């Protein structure tokens, strides 16, 4: 800003100061006889009149430059590639999920290097692995929040890019560490899961997710506004409300991405009990850090550095004596048995 002041202000001063050229040059012209005195007086008056438009022009000129920058910024948002989903299409036949050699890059860095997975309908699959290994990325790809760079994700045999967004989101309930609550009442936030739900259904879902007691202790109970992005509630409370919302949604595929991370252990027991109710007969994909909670999975995928390092049931993986065994031993060491 400072750098532009000197040229800018001189321009502001000189341009309106048309007199500096008009007076001497006009004088010379009058002397040489090519300009009459009357005309010269008129010229002087007119050149004073030109000052206003010039000032206006100058003082807005940097706004024009700002405008250019803004237009470019807006363009860069509008030009960002959109996810392509058809407006109409068939609902998938079943709820089996398949990832076929999926690659995915975040910015310029490839984080998934060819993931292939088979998740049969109605099965229970767990993803485990060190932090930053790509587990959550896989969950997001399955939830159709992001698109794979290459390879494909299919639901019931259909590539999810061919399934309309609306139909697809009916099939999936995705509960992550940081679900968003809208600034409306607790009741309406839960009801988003199923707009036709009665108040009783909402409360039932809340009870099953361990929310009912703390909701009742809020100043207006279920009608308490949650604040922008749920700011009136603690992290654990927000998480439980989003679980209640997902419960109400009753989608055939449930993805839990560290869904109880902020919940204190006292409530985790309540939630886990209801999660197992919620997920009966459904395709369940769980990302967990407490390995002891997922030992019953039909299949556990061990993800490391964006690749499937190992897979199998809990017992099989322990027999492989690999990363899973190391993680399991560490977990057992700190596990809270009282």
């Amino acid at each position, binding site marked *: 800003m400072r750098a532009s002041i000197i040229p800018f202000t*001189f321009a502001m001063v000189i341009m309106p100061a048309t007199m500096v050229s008009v007076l001497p040059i006009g004088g010379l012209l009058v002397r040489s006889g090519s300009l009459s005195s009357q005309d010269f007086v008129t010229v002087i008056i007119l050149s004073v009149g030109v000052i206003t438009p010039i000032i206006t022009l100058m003082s807005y000129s940097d706004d024009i430059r700002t405008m250019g920058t803004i237009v470019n910024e807006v363009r860069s948002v509008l030009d960002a590639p959109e996810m392509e989903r058809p407006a109409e299409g068939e609902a998938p036949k079943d709820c089996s999920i398949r990832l076929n050699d999926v690659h995915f890059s975040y910015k310029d860095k490839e984080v998934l290097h060819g993931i292939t997975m088979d998740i049969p309908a109605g099965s229970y699959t767990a993803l485990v692995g060190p932090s930053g290994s790509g587990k959550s990325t896989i969950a997001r790809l399955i939830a159709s929040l992001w698109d794979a760079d290459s390879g494909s994700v299919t639901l019931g045999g259909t590539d999810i890019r061919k399934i309309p967004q609306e139909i697809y989101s009916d099939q999936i309930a*995705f509960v992550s560490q940081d679900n968003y609550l809208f600034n409306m009442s607790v009741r309406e936030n839960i009801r988003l899961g199923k707009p036709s739900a009665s108040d009783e259904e909402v409360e039932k879902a809340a009870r099953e997710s361990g929310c009912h007691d703390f909701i009742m202790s809020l100043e207006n109970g279920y009608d308490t506004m949650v604040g922008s992005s749920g700011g009136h509630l603690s992290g654990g409370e927000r998480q439980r409300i989003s679980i209640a919302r997902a419960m109400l949604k009753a989608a055939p595929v449930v993805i839990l991405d560290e869904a109880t991370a902020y919940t204190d252990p006292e409530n985790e027991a309540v939630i886990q009990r209801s999660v197992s109710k919620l997920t009966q007969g459904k395709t369940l994909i769980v990302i967990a850090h407490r390995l002891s*909670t997922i030992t019953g999975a039909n299949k556990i995928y061990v993800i490391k550095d964006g690749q499937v390092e190992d897979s199998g049931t809990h017992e099989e993986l322990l027999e492989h004596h690999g990363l899973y065994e190391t993680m399991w031993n560490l977990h057992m060491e700190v596990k809270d048995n009282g």
Partner: protein
Amino acid sequence: MVEIIRKFFAFCSEENRRKFQTSVLLGVFQAMFEALKIPAIAVMVKALLAGQVTGRDILLSLGIMAVSIAGAGLIKAKASMLQTEGGYDTCAKKRIEIAEHMRYLPMGFFSDNSLGQITSVTTNVLENLENVATRVVMLVCEGLLTTALIIVMLAFFDLRIALVLLIGLCLFLAANTSLQKAAGTLAPRKINADEKLVEKVLEYLQGMAEVKAYHLTGKKSGELNEAIAANSKVNTDMEMTLIPRMSAQSLIAKLTGVAMALCACIFYCNGTMDALTAVVMVISAFIVNASLETAGNYSALLRIVDASVDRVQEILKTPQMDIDGEKITPENRDIKADNIEFSYDLRKIIDGVSLSIPEKSVTAIVGPSGGGKTTLVNLLARFWDVDKGTVSLGGHDVRDYDMDSLMSNFSFVFQNVYLFHDTIADNIRFGQSEAPMEEVIAAAKKACCHDFIMALPDGYDTVIGEGGASLSGGEKQRISIARAMMKDAPVIFLDEATANVDPENEHDLMEAIRALTNEKTVIMIAHRLKTVEHADQILVIDQGKIVQQGTHAELLSQEGIYRNFIQERREAAGWKIKTVQ
């Protein structure tokens, strides 16, 4: 108009106000230099009337104009420099002041004022001030000053014309007052609409995943579109209301010029004014028109300045906690609470709690969620003030300390760790920017961070993504422990890591906590049985009261919440998600 300018000056800091005042004063001199064009013209016109333009006349008018431009240019450059510095510095200082102020606001503020509102004030509103305000205030001042100067100058030539101009100026100011009034009712609406828009955009973007998952595209984008439409309507209304008034104002400015020129002609014709003066008067009429219109065009924006200043002041006026206190270094770090109470809105969260925490002891706070554990810790650390009773550290009421000397006793390790968009090393150094690298590494090693930090692309110089996005929850927590390690405060407040860790992290995290809390006064919200068992004192909090108090063995022998809690913990630990095939 003058009132708003005065208000804006009052809004600035002493130093910046002086800059603005100097630049207004410089504006007067600038106006004088610019007005030199009138004598320059007079020289030429006189020569023309004499019918003989000499080289001396040409050189003289050129000379006067050269002085005029050089003088005005230099002065304006200096004045603009002062304005710009003043403008940006004022807004930078106000932003810092707001940030500082927020540190000591009662928690109610953040729930009454939405994120959108606060964001809007610190971005939009202050941006209005730094760009619009300085330019507008200066241009308006300049326009008015130039006009005033010309009136004085004209008075020397011909009092009658000066009077015509004075009347014109009064009419112009009257029109401007009506314009200001109309803009005044609209400006707060505009700022409200801006805030609403920011809020809706934030909500839509942050909740994008939910918007997709729950078919809210129509509903939420509808709300967003509404906010956009409302914003555009307010802006259009504002222009629509202002345009006729601005035209009237500009018409008055033009008519004043016409009246001046007309009078000059009449006076010339009836012989009461000589030809030279008449021509100079006509030319002055144009100059007056230019400066009045500049002042007029920008003055409509003054209301935005007015409303923006109000909005910022409103936030700064929110009462803070009383932070004046003395610098106290307590002899010991015993913490006591004496019958403390705390309510949030109408809900009593802490209801008569008394406790005593001796130096270097470990106190575990347990109890059901929503029972008041977190609030109690916040009161002990004086994040909030108690409504009744006292909290004391080393025998002094925490309210007698000044904030910095109180906080130097405490370190915090909480669940939601916020890391700054900076290098890992600086995040650990946090608050001690001078600390040598060896100390940083030593703290990181103790907090079990060293290994994962070294595995990052640039080691300790890796810049953490906003909100610590590139690290896992457990890693973030360990960095916050390393941070606390660096600070080495005698009292540690700890919200024990819940499940927010990966399996391989959990082990390291426990190690780190052990290293941190060694030989310290520890107050922790505890979830793990192992830590609870070894605490010197366990406080069971339920419904804002201490319902049980004692060691693990004592409490286990009593009927009550604690025993049930232990029972549940054992069940939860042995629990797993069952498969249903």
